[in-house]
């Protein structure tokens, strides 16, 4: 599904964000990427949805060679990958339903398909009664669930969650992690970037630890060790 082969990312002039990353994530896995701030976790996530390109090495995601992908192909790749961020990235002037449907509108989905899919997704994230609300009228946890609904709208094969609980309290954090686990149970590969020790230890899933841009540990059913 996802294969990093000697991948390095160097920001000019000479900041090494990732160094010789070799990694294979299988379809349907739930992988946590952990590490302290500035160790390259977010850079690794950005490589996954082609926000950044490797400086060296080869990165293949579901048949797409991200290291050599053409600009015109990036949108097609991104429709296969759902992305969730710490700051939700919701459009404040759009309602919950509009935020979710926006992802379908911009790829040319028919109004009928939008009418069918949006309520379905809002049901999955348990927001069916809040379709008409604006993001500012929701709690942090609810806003993150809107972002997850939007990430799921294209039925992606991979979900990349970059610190999705960074702005949430313990209860909402628990809800969001449970939602990601549920999504994973339906077969979607989940890559969770976090530095939350409790989450990682409670998941009992694969844990990859980064330090200074290098993988220092990769364990099945791992724990947070920093």
């Amino acid at each position, binding site marked *: 599904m996802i294969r990093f082969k000697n991948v390095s990312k160097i920001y000019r002039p000479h900041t090494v964000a990732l160094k010789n990353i070799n990694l294979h994530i299988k379809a349907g896995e739930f992988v946590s990427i952990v590490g302290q701030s500035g160790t390259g976790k977010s850079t690794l996530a950005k490589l996954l949805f082609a926000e950044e390109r490797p400086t060296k090495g080869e990165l293949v995601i579901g048949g797409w060679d991200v290291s050599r992908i053409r600009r015109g192909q990036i949108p097609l790749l991104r429709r296969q990958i759902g*992305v969730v961020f710490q700051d939700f990235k919701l459009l404040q002037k759009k309602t919950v339903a509009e935020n979710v449907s926006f992802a379908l*509108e911009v790829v040319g989905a028919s*109004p009928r398909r939008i009418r069918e899919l949006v309520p379905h997704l809002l049901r999955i994230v348990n927001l069916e009664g809040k379709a008409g609300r604006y993001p500012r009228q929701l709690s942090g946890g609810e806003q993150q669930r809107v972002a997850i609904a939007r990430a799921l709208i294209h039925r992606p094969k991979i979900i990349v969650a970059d610190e999705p609980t960074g702005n949430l309290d313990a209860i909402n954090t628990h809800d969001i992690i449970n939602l990601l686990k549920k999504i994973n149970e339906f077969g979607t590969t989940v890559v969770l970037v976090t530095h939350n020790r409790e989450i990682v230890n409670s998941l009992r899933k694969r844990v990859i630890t980064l330090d200074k841009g290098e993988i220092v540990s990769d364990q099945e059913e791992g724990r947070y060790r920093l």
Partner: protein
Amino acid sequence: MISLLRVLRFAFQNFWRNVWLSVITVSMLTLTLLTVNLLLSLHVLTDAAIKAVENKVDVSLYFNEGTQVELVQGAAGYIRGLDQVRDVQIVTPEEALERFRARHAEDRLILSSLEEVGENPFGYTLIVQARDAADFGFILEALDHPQYRDAIREKDFSNYGIIIDRLNEATGKVRVVGLAVAAVLLLIAMLIIVNVVRMTIFIHRDEIGVMKLVGAGNTFVRAPYFLEAILYSATATGIAAAAVFGTSRVLAPRLQAYFGIVQADLFAYFATHPLPVFGLEFAALSALTILSTAFAMHKYLKV
């Protein structure tokens, strides 16, 4: 089709949500078009003015006092036979004296001088009108005919040539200044468009970011900005056309009165040439605004 409609919707949203920026941009484009149309009107009116002067242009041939009427009539017949000549009028010495008196009715000194001379000092005069002002040279040469040459005292033409030359010179200068003003206005308009697109990109950076994140194609992200540029051009052309039609309609009777028999109806000109004038202006303006937008997006929009 659905995508096209959505791109159109986003373009109209951009236009309305940044309505003051749109107003400034459209104003600059409209001013540019009005300057261009003013130059065009000047061109049309200059042509009409030159035609009006040309219609009034004639050459007066003053025959020596005592020249026989048969000779004058022969000369008139000879000149009439030239293709370049539109009309020839014979003025008798009596008519010439009458006209002179009428023209200087207020000038006692001249009239008293005329009284002192005692007899009619005027000979026959031929007033020749050419089909074209440029033909006068040929006509004057033709009058160098040995049969008539010695009987003609004076040929009077040069003043009108100077008027036409001055008219051409003055309008030429106005055109150069007008073109420079139009170019400056257009440059300002293009700079404004570049900055409008830059600000629009900044205002919509979150929306653009989300679009990219969820897999919107580059064309889908960029197309609304190009459509917005066309929308600016269409609005500016519409306003300029309305202003030009309105003004030319109001001015039409005055211009007609000023130019007399010569056709100087600007309204009719614009009404009969809407496509070559406003169609072409719209096409040129759209091309320039699209170019400005492309430059702004190349510089500020990374998709």
